[in-house]
């Protein structure tokens, strides 16, 4: 209550009030508004069951996947400042990132290990959700969203694998794309759509790049948001539904 004049002037200002729509939390109404108008509570209920916080229930895997995704966006944007998706320049810019960009090698390391880690963590998260039976109603649809997230994660990782344009990536993508070519009837067409041609080349690189830096990450944030929102809308984690006797 005892605030100095300049401070009150600041907190009463049009700009301040446009950001914080409530007053000082010194009365019950403003105290609850402080909480409920906070973005944190857009994703979380005010209170959660202590069961859903038990480490051995989730092992934190869903949050880990979210964190890894954020690390990938952050380090990926840094790499984008230098990387050029052309057959002539991709490999030289990778060398440049490693040799002359400050912390370039380190940023690339973070991006690569986070990508491998995310694939692993998402698979483990799926296994945890399965074995805890958390896909049962009312969470069926969130499980289906999860399956799409798994496929998007694999796609993001696979398209990124080509970008260094070294022997390792070139032949790994060739092997992977050949698998798509084995589909009956549509196989050769699917392979050609994926590669933008009959073999891995410039058209493949730009396709994979666009998928990797735009389409797949955007689809991922969108679906991760829906996924997390659904966790809340489905009544929190399935552990909450277990009667206390068990």
């Amino acid at each position, binding site marked *: 209550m005892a605030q100095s004049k300049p401070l009150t002037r600041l907190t009463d200002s049009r700009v301040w009030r446009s950001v914080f729509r409530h007053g000082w939390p010194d*009365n*019950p*109404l403003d105290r609850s508004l402080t909480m409920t108008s906070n973005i*944190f509570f857009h994703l*979380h*209920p005010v*209170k*959660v*069951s*202590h069961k859903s*916080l038990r480490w051995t*229930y989730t092992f*934190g895997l869903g*949050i*880990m996947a979210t*964190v*890894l995704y954020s690390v990938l966006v952050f380090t990926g944007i840094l790499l984008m400042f230098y990387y050029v998706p052309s057959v002539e320049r991709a*490999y030289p810019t990778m060398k440049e990132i490693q040799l002359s960009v400050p912390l370039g*090698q*380190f940023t*690339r*390391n*973070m991006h690569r*290990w986070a990508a*491998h880690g995310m694939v692993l963590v998402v*698979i483990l998260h799926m296994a945890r959700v399965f*074995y*805890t*039976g*958390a*896909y*049962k109603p009312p*969470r*069926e649809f969130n499980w*289906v969203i999860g*399956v799409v997230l798994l496929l998007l994660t694999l796609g993001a*990782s*696979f398209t990124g*694998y080509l970008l260094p*344009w*070294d*022997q*390792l990536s*070139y*032949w*790994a993508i*060739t*092997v*992977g794309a050949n*698998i*798509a070519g*084995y589909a009956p009837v549509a*196989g050769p067409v699917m392979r050609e759509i994926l590669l933008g041609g009959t073999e*891995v080349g410039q058209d493949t690189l730009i396709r994979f790049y666009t998928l990797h830096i735009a389409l797949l990450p955007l689809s991922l944030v969108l679906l991760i948001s829906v996924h997390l929102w659904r966790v809340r809308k489905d009544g929190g984690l*399935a*552990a*909450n*539904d*277990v009667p206390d006797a*068990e």
Partner: protein
Amino acid sequence: MNDAPMNEEIFPKGTGKSYALVEMMRGESPMVGKGPEKTVFSFPVVLLWEILILLGVTLALFFFSLVKQAPLDAIANPQVTTDPAKAPWYFVGLQELLEHMHPTLAGIVIPGILVLFLVALPYLDYSREHAGVWFSTRRGKRIAGWTALYAVVAMTAFIVLDNAFSMRELLRGAAPAWVAQWLLPSLILALIVLLPVAVLWRKGASVREIMIALFTVMLASAVVLTISGFLFRGPGFEMYLPWQMPDGYNPWNDF
């Protein structure tokens, strides 16, 4: 320090709002059947929990990235195939499967069935009983353990035997190619997958228990195939012991 009377705290004066439009409806709220004593405030408890995971994951990545460098091979050369040419580790299990059957079966049909199984799963097993409990019951846990062991043994045997006495080679000339490439591998895999299901069925297992068996066979087989493709395949995608790879090939460099 709040000394406003209780009713004022619940119905604060002068907020310009004293009614809410509410409607009665059937259904459960997330809090049905739970007393408030069993809950904790998300803020700050959940927030701290999340920050802890954020810091843990970031630190682990940070230190790993300090000591282990991301690989960069020679520049891509479409003229020169690497030997072996391996898919990334999460697809190398499929590549291993390709060695044992028709590529359409290994590369398209089986992955397609797996994705369909995953999508259909919650609509096949929709009983809400035991949701939110690891393995549902003690019996579920035993089923998971035994089917995991069984699948690891069965898939390893399948890979090793088919590698030693290739069906493709044995039946060459004796039967049409589709027998060795399509029919036999499908039958063997179907047998591996359905055997535990049949056993459980006869014991009157629940849908959930059968799903535990199916999912475990899938997961354990994927692990075996991935390890085999990643660690035990060397030049020419031939099978070697990881510590006896020829030409100084080190599978770990393929990350």
